[in-house]
């Protein structure tokens, strides 16, 4: 079975770039983990390594969404992508921009003075977490995203099949593009700086990205088990609706301690406590739909999609809600508890989502009916077990830190260097386990459907359901 529309193969370009960046992200992540024990370990300082770690993450997920979107919109609109050469240009422009940004970070790491402002603007690194990319790159990224949205919008207009899935997907993408803008101006006040910065960071990962996740989950449930469109789309609307009702005002949980008025403690505390509810809905939805349909056409794709729903709830939902109330957050804010939440949330909500989309769509892009899925399961267990153990060690480190630094009043450096040392050692070891998982996945991505099929095979493409 191959793709219905040749231009859907474009998705593979984006996936390939995403997968390579995933590998880079985890490699620098291990360097960062070693620097927790040995700060002088590498030629680049921790701040540069960490910028690379978190930027590679955001970009590879974003690029993965782009590939998935081109595939889904073409499939849902039942037509070829509008202007394929322009879409390819958008891909290569993105690759060039991202590469230039990465080289800039490395240059700054070797010579911090290279980031001296030119006409008031830092040329290599904006010095703001997650949105370190300099202003010129911001502009290019916005142009690329707008071009990407425009191409998909034009594809939809070719046949005007406004399905719920692609409607919600495009709403999520437009929201994503809009929410990049509050990070693109300078504030003299650090309070206002962080206030608008959270619009970008929170309303991406707990807003627009979750909308995209809801739409892609619905698409995958249809493709892997032939679930009925009517039903999955209704639940999708309810899920993404609840994400927005809780997530928008849930931004308040970042406005407790940055110099903003006290009413945010109420707004943030109440609404962010409700944020796990839609994520639990998605888990229930995935299980219910799976149980109702016995005819599984892409087992490993479904496996990843359900795993995504579960770990989205555990990582983003549970690991977030434990420290979201102001009474708790007062003590845990700014500690390793946040790092633990960040790791499990990104892994569950978005890493598994993009991997699931790759396993759902790649077989038909490669034109294979059957493929060996043993590597896909192997990499899943290496990744998931390693990540759970990483999160356990960081959570442990965070608990020790909260007790010793925040409650007992010990010095930050004493806690980090002495009492948490073993947590850092184990975290680095589990990081290597995660790297093994990523390596298996990268090999599988490039080999899937290209070698001879062995015994463990399965049918790749979805049966058509009218």
């Amino acid at each position, binding site marked *: 079975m191959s793709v219905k529309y040749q231009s859907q193969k474009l998705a593979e370009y984006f996936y390939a770039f995403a997968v390579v960046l995933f590998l880079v992200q985890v490699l620098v992540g291990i360097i960062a983990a070693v*620097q*927790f024990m040995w*700060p*002088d370990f590498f030629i680049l*300082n*921790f*701040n540069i390594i*960490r910028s690379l770690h978190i930027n590679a993450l955001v970009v590879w997920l974003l690029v993965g969404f782009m590939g998935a979107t081109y595939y889904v919109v073409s499939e849902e609109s039942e037509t070829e992508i509008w202007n394929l050469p322009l879409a390819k240009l958008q891909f290569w422009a993105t690759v060039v921009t991202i590469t230039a940004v990465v080289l800039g970070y490395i240059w700054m790491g070797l010579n*911090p003075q290279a*980031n*001296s402002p030119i006409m008031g603007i*830092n040329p290599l*690194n*904006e*010095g*703001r*977490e997650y949105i*370190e990319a300099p202003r010129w790159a911001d502009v290019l990224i916005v142009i690329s995203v707008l071009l990407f949205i425009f191409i998909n919008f034009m594809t939809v207009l070719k046949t005007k099949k406004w399905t719920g899935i692609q409607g919600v997907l495009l709403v999520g993408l437009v929201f994503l593009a809009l929410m990049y803008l509050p990070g693109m101006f300078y504030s*003299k*006040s*650090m*309070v*206002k*700086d*962080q*206030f608008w910065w959270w619009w970008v960071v929170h309303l991406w990962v707990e807003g627009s990205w979750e909308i995209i996740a809801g739409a892609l989950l619905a698409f995958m449930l249809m493709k892997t088990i032939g679930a009925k469109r*009517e039903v999955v*789309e*209704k639940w999708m*609307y*309810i899920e993404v*609706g609840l994400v*927005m*009702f809780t997530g*928008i*005002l849930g*931004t308040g949980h*970042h*406005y407790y*301690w*940055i*110099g*903003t*008025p006290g009413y*945010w*403690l109420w*707004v943030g505390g109440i609404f962010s406590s409700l944020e796990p509810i839609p994520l639990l809905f998605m888990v229930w939805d995935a299980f219910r739909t799976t149980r109702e349909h016995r005819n599984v056409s892409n087992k490993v794709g479904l496996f990843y999609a359900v795993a995504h729903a579960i770990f989205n709830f555990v990582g983003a939902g549970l690991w977030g809600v434990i420290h979201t109330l102001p009474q708790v957050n007062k003590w845990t*804010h*700014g500690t*390793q508890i*946040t790092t633990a939440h960040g790791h499990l949330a990104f892994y569950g909500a978005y890493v598994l989502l993009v991997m699931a989309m790759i396993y759902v769509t790649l077989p038909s892009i490669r034109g294979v009916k059957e493929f060996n899925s043993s590597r896909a399961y192997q990499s899943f267990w290496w990744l998931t077990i390693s990540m759970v153990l990483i999160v356990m060690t960081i959570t442990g480190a965070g608990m020790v830190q909260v007790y010793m630094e*925040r*409650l*007992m*009043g*010990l*010095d*930050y*450096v*004493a806690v980090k260097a002495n009492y948490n040392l073993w947590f850092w050692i184990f975290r680095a070891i589990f990081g290597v386990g995660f790297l093994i998982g990523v390596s298996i996945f990268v090999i599988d991505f490039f080999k899937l459907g290209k070698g001879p099929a062995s015994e463990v095979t399965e049918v790749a493409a979805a049966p058509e359901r009218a």
Partner: protein
Amino acid sequence: MSNKAARNLFIFGSLFFFLIFLGLTFDTMGKLDGRAPEITEQIDAGKKVWHKYDCIGCHTIFGNGSYFAPDLTKTTENKPKGYLKQFLMDPRSANPKAAMPKLGIRSDEADDLIVFLGWISKVDTNGWPPKPILAAAAGVAGQELTDGQKLYRSLGCSACHVINGIGGTTGPELTRVGARHDREWLVGHFKDPQAYVPNSAMQKVEAPDGDIEKLTDYMLTLK
């Protein structure tokens, strides 16, 4: 519920909550300037230094950042400015065990950055970071403090020095300092640290001779 109803709930519900969010944002923007001191040219210059060296790539500020190095929200309240400046320009000259590398921060940049961090420390953060419960409790209850112990607290020595596990790690640990130095050395060092330890980042203890004697008495009990 029909699909159309679910879709409308999503669209109009989201817009409703976004409008509330916009309203709260508008209200907050009007209140922020009243919750922090006025921003001078130098504070703004310091903020730009903060961005230039990507300080947030290791540190946190208001608890947000990279969790790799200490939070700097209250750092100017806890550490002497002279120490901070020496540390910023050459961390390991001020504290040989420092993890921070020498980034090439210039003298004027260090001054601006310290003024910026001073502004940060005065922002009304709804009481964050909280005072440690156990350390605060130990100062209220427990045995009567000696004059030297009281001076050790009131002069803020524990911002940089550790005694019995409590205190900052930027200066040498003092748990057994009485075994290392005699009275003459300690008194002289308090009055002029650099005369005893070349390039020391410690500030002179600005206190009457009587107080310095009492502080020295306390130090000599630490063996």
